[in-house]
């Protein structure tokens, strides 16, 4: 292909990526390193201020909890799906895809009506006479975790199912006929062979949870802020450009860092697998 044609074909998206992504990122984030001379003091301020540090720690903690819960539920559920008959499996997989394509506001709203003060759980508890006062479930870390698990469980399920479909029934049968009970088959055969899927989906869930805005806003409220809600508050409500730039850069670092760690683990696993062969 001629260079001129190459340039013309790529032109629109290259210009878009430059004008709307690279230059804005550069111009927005660069000032956070100058006070006015080059320094990291905005960043050290961020980490020493207990308010912002707590939000960073909460974001990391809740994202980790969400990821672990998704893996713990996802492994057995995907195993169950992968053993289904072809037709039923395809139906359940497209049903699982459906919430993934539904708006995050809709999904958050569903959990508001379940966890809220007059929500279904509180209606039920009061009906049964278990509690007199409504239990505070909404606007807590718990609500954020539930909402995030709800948001990303479909990702985990679809990734793990496609990996487990590839394991093949003969492997499972081999374990079984050699006398491994179902529990041992699951933990010694299925789980290790699905490791790559757990890794891929785990990264998606973690990165997704830590950068989500809608779910922590709707379910966490003003008290339980995450990085994304803090960024919006700093930039839109307080117009604090340097703080916003610091948070934005930290969020990018976390997303890219998670990817990097993932690649490193994947590479070592690949090497070990090669060594075994």
């Amino acid at each position, binding site marked *: 292909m001629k260079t001129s044609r190459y340039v013309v074909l790529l032109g629109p998206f290259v210009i878009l990526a430059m004008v709307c992504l690279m230059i804005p990122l550069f111009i927005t984030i660069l000032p956070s390193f100058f006070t006015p001379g080059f320094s990291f003091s905005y960043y050290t301020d961020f980490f020493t201020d207990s308010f912002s540090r707590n939000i960073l720690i909460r974001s990391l903690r809740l994202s980790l909890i969400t990821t672990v819960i998704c893996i713990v539920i996802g492994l057995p559920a995907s195993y169950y799906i992968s053993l289904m008959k072809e037709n039923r499996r395809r139906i359940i997989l497209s049903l699982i895809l459906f919430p993934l394509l539904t708006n995050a506001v809709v999904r958050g709203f569903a959990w508001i009506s379940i966890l809220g003060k007059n929500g279904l759980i509180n209606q039920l508890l009061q009906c049964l006479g278990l509690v007199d006062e409504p239990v505070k479930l909404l606007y807590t870390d718990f609500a954020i975790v539930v909402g995030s698990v709800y948001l990303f469980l479909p990702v985990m399920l679809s990734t793990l199912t496609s990996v487990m479909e590839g394991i093949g029934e003969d492997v499972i049968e081999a374990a079984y006929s050699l006398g491994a009970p179902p529990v041992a088959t699951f933990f010694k055969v299925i789980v290790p062979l699905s490791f790559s899927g757990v890794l891929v989906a785990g990264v998606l869930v973690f*990165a997704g949870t830590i950068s989500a805005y809608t779910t922590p806003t709707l379910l966490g409220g003003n008290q339980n802020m995450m990085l994304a809600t803090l960024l919006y508050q700093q930039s839109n409500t307080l117009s604090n450009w340097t703080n916003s730039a610091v948070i934005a850069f930290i969020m990018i670092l976390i997303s890219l860092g998670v990817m990097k760690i993932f690649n490193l683990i994947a590479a070592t696993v690949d090497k070990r697998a090669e060594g075994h062969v």
Partner: protein
Amino acid sequence: MYKHRLVTIVAWLCFAFIFLPLILIVVTSFNSADSISLPLEGFSLQWFVKVFRSRSLVQSLKNSLVLALVSSTIGIVFGLLSSIALVKRPGKISTILLSIFLSPSLIPGIVIGYVLFHFLVVSLQLPLNLALILGHLLVVMPYSVRIICASLKDIDESLEEAALTLGCPPSRAFMKVVLPNLRPAMISAFMLSFINSFNNIPVSMYLKGPGMNTLPYAMMNHIEYNYDPTVSALSVMLMGLTLVLMIAMDWSMSAQRLKSKAAQGE
């Protein structure tokens, strides 16, 4: 046969967890009670009527539809052009450009929204509707490039070469041979772009303005001030739209599969 009873129990609890909240929304949207509550009181369509009475919701729905339509259409055209260049001339530059085109799906949406707002609106003072379209183009860019590139790589190059050897001019060979084979990929790229643009919150949230609100953000505002099944009714309509898009996508893919099978004489 190979599964413990516990696996079955966890799986069904997991399905219940995924589907019950959505079923709850559908059921309460037809309920006459003015809050989300069970047991049900009676059948009513009043919440659906209320959606269309709310001027802010209707206006933002229109905005979101137009925005998603425009950005996905431009997105797949640009995506097609870029994919041709990237696939037909592989190399170091193409690899770097591909990762740049895919990067908006790696960078947190809220960060993209913020830097766009800071650069396009505050520094360049672009009008909001232009900034919104540019922002949404950025949102859909990874989907169109990834899907169309993957499909273009899969197309047998000898088909195009055959057309060229038989004397077909390059542009005509592309239109008549390559483009028809790309159709399913273009359709899925369009659908995914549409859904992602339509559902996007972080980018739209920063670039909204008076009279320029998008539906998801208008819904968030609505929830903040009113707690009634209007949002349920609207959600049911959105789920209907999602379902239609999913079926259309599935249908276009299987139609293509049938065609190619017929062509191979199976």
